[in-house]
């Protein structure tokens, strides 16, 4: 195989995302927001809260540790380019930084009720994620569901 001497300079491809994956991420974020709200009101199921935030939490952990996204098959985290790209955009601009610790505690928490502070931060994060995913979905140059 030839050496990739110009690999870095050639990554300026645009508009390679598929819209449906952005929609999928927005729906995931919306599910998490609904579960967080239910938990905040004390009438949600903890397993639904955990399931709704699992993929985002595990993906954020991988992104933060610069671990290898593609080295092995794993259904636990996001693998679609569109999902990873959007998650990275939101986490990099999120104040006060990616809420990994909060999400991890929600994910691993027992039957104890999460604090309203934790739920508030998680809510803020998933609102940002839903908005960003919808922004990409609405982008006129995003490709269609059709595949020629």
């Amino acid at each position, binding site marked *: 195989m030839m050496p990739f001497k110009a690999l870095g300079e050639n990554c300026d491809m645009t508009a390679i995302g598929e819209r449906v994956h952005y929609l*999928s991420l927005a729906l995931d974020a919306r599910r998490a927001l609904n579960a967080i709200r239910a938990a905040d009101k004390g009438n949600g199921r903890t397993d639904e809260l955990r399931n709704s935030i699992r993929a985002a939490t595990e993906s954020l952990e991988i992104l933060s540790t610069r671990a290898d996204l593609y080295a092995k098959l794993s259904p636990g985290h996001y693998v679609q380019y569109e999902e990873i790209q959007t998650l990275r955009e939101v986490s990099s601009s999120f104040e006060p930084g990616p809420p990994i610790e909060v999400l991890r505690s929600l994910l691993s928490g027992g039957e104890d009720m999460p604090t309203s502070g934790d739920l508030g931060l998680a809510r803020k994060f998933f609102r940002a994620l839903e908005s960003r995913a919808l922004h990409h979905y609405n982008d006129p140059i995003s490709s269609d569901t059709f595949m020629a």
Partner: protein
Amino acid sequence: MAEQRDYLRHDLTALYAFIECVAGGVVSRRNSAAYSAAAIRFFDFVEALAASSKNHLERWSVDDSEEFEDRRGELGTIRAAWREFHKLIKPALDADTLQAPSAVVDGIVRRFRELELPGCKETEFALFHTSEFNYVQVHTADLRRTAEKIRHIIPDAPLFPDNLGLIGLPYSQGRTAFANCLVAHEMGHHIYRRMAYGAALQVKADAVLKSGSSTYEQMEQGQKDVVIKALTQWSEEIFCDLFGAMLLGPCYPYSYIEAYDLSAILDCNGLVSGDRILPFIGFYEKYPSEMFRLQQQSIFLRESPWWDHISKSSARYATLLKVLHNVPIDAHVKENDKLGYLIPVLDSIMPEIRRVIGNTFEGVDCGFVLFSQLNNTIQKYLANGIVPSTLNVRYGNRPEEVTMVSPSPLVLLNSGMEFYLTRVNELMCSIRDEDETMFPRRLHWIRRIEEWIAKAIEDESLEKEVIDVDPGGNGNPAPPQT
């Protein structure tokens, strides 16, 4: 909150109206035209999703401003989901059975159902028309996942129908037969997404990149994502081409050559023209070049029983397949300034793609033996203007040693395509006063050949239909057999 709730009522009504507009056409139009069973399943899904969405909106409310902030975004997400279905509904309504080339596509679907993978035997494809000259596939596996996720927001939303594919055909190609062999590529997309082959090919691409250069390891993850995405998309296209070639044999690459005018690559001596490869050798961000794709089909078919027949064919398209085999990978790299560095990586992934194709078609007869037995007879029928629905095939020397055979769609398409590519002149010369130099007359006979093949494919499907006859002739049909 009163004023805000008025705004909210307005927003809810606007979304309700949007859903009503999108789905309303299904209710009003579907009764005025005939649709395939697959299209009807899709329309049923849309109607059920519309009903559940509207019910959800009618019950939708918030208690306070905090909940408003939390939930207002949900309406935008529901609207986005409906936009996703919006683009499919009208094309599907337009492709009623009077417009779509049902017999040929149905024949290819019957071939598809020979796959042993889960769900393939039950799979149906709804067809729609596209304005672009492209055969397209809607990623129903992705739509299915989307529909499942909608259920987390709208709990009584329907699931997307099982084993349903959506394929778009150029609106202009409704009457053609051979061009529609390209739907096999779209069926490949259906399988690729449903079997989630992309994840395995991502892993392979990552491994190849790591073994090829330390530069990749040093890249930012965002850059890696872009590279992996491009390679995965290219791999999917190649997979679908090989799927088409495996499903339909050489008539698939022949259709591909004709659709994209790839025979322009050949010069007068039947060799690759250095000048005329230029429009076909450039890679695109989402697609490998047409020439690379066709070369991979040639390499793939060379390993199959079909190659012996292709190598002896006088068709110019067969010549193209033969000469493309020898184009070196460096020629592709050289002509692709921007993306050329990734072509050797794609080439290194090819064995994995071929392995996945092998797994996909495990236990499926490639059809060549039957083709080689029936091809001459079918072409003899076509040369005499006879629909080759039922062939009388001799298996011995005695008069009664003749059996009747109904050729499969795979055999019919390949024999018909070969006849179309090599024997139109012969057919026309055998007809008194016919002039093979007149384009309208050539087109007339080409259309007739396609109609004969389509009719034979339709007849073959009728032979497979189970009919409950009336054994006593007294108006009581036989009970259905279990």
